[in-house]
């Protein structure tokens, strides 16, 4: 086990805080992915990765921000960008995937999925408000 050389100037409290956030972030991501591998149906599985993309990413971004701010080697722009990027994009991909899955399940007549709400067929000609 080699100690990280470029972090020799890091004070003890910062090292402990960085360690805490790193392990919590990575641990939450791992728990989410374990759930992703174990849960039985697609709609349950769609909840599991959000653990990694909310506070999993948050923890690691926080650890990295403390690390590089205390060491003062570089400004922490990338971490903030990565955090914002993951927070904004994950809901979009999950919603699109969920809609695609609903669409496919309904097209196959899967009984476990709620039926399409009435009146949407007539609504196609009208402007949709929230899509």
């Amino acid at each position, binding site marked *: 086990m080699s100690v990280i050389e470029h972090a020799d100037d890091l004070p003890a409290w910062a090292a402990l805080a960085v*360690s805490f956030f790193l*392990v919590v972030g990575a641990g939450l991501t791992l728990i989410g*992915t374990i759930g992703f591998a174990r849960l039985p149906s697609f709609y349950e599985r769609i909840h599991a990765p959000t653990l990694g993309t909310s506070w999993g990413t948050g923890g690691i971004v926080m650890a990295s921000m403390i690390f590089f701010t205390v060491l003062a080697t570089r400004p922490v722009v990338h971490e903030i960008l990565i955090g914002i990027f993951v927070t904004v994009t994950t809901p979009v991909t999950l919603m699109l995937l969920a809609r695609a899955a609903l669409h*496919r399940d309904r097209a196959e007549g899967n009984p476990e999925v709620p039926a399409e709400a009435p009146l949407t067929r007539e609504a196609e000609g009208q402007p949709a408000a929230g899509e």
Partner: protein
Amino acid sequence: MSHTILAWSVTIAQVFLAIAMALAALRMFRGPRAQDRVLALDTLYVNSMLLLMVFGMRTGRVIYFEASLVIGMLGFVATVALAKFLMRGEVIE
């Protein structure tokens, strides 16, 4: 002392994220349906972003963070395109 803890926790985080990537890859192979595989690919992308960030902290080089941003951007576009394909490509409307 605290630096030993830091070194260990960086290693632990790397191992956790590597296991998480392996589990996501497992789900991608097992499926059972196309949407599960796409969701697994998306999880794999996010986990690899996080792993690259931990690598960046270990080496102290900024290039890992840039690689992480690029992976995130490509992963987002790929997942959106695949989800669109699932919605329009296979099911006859």
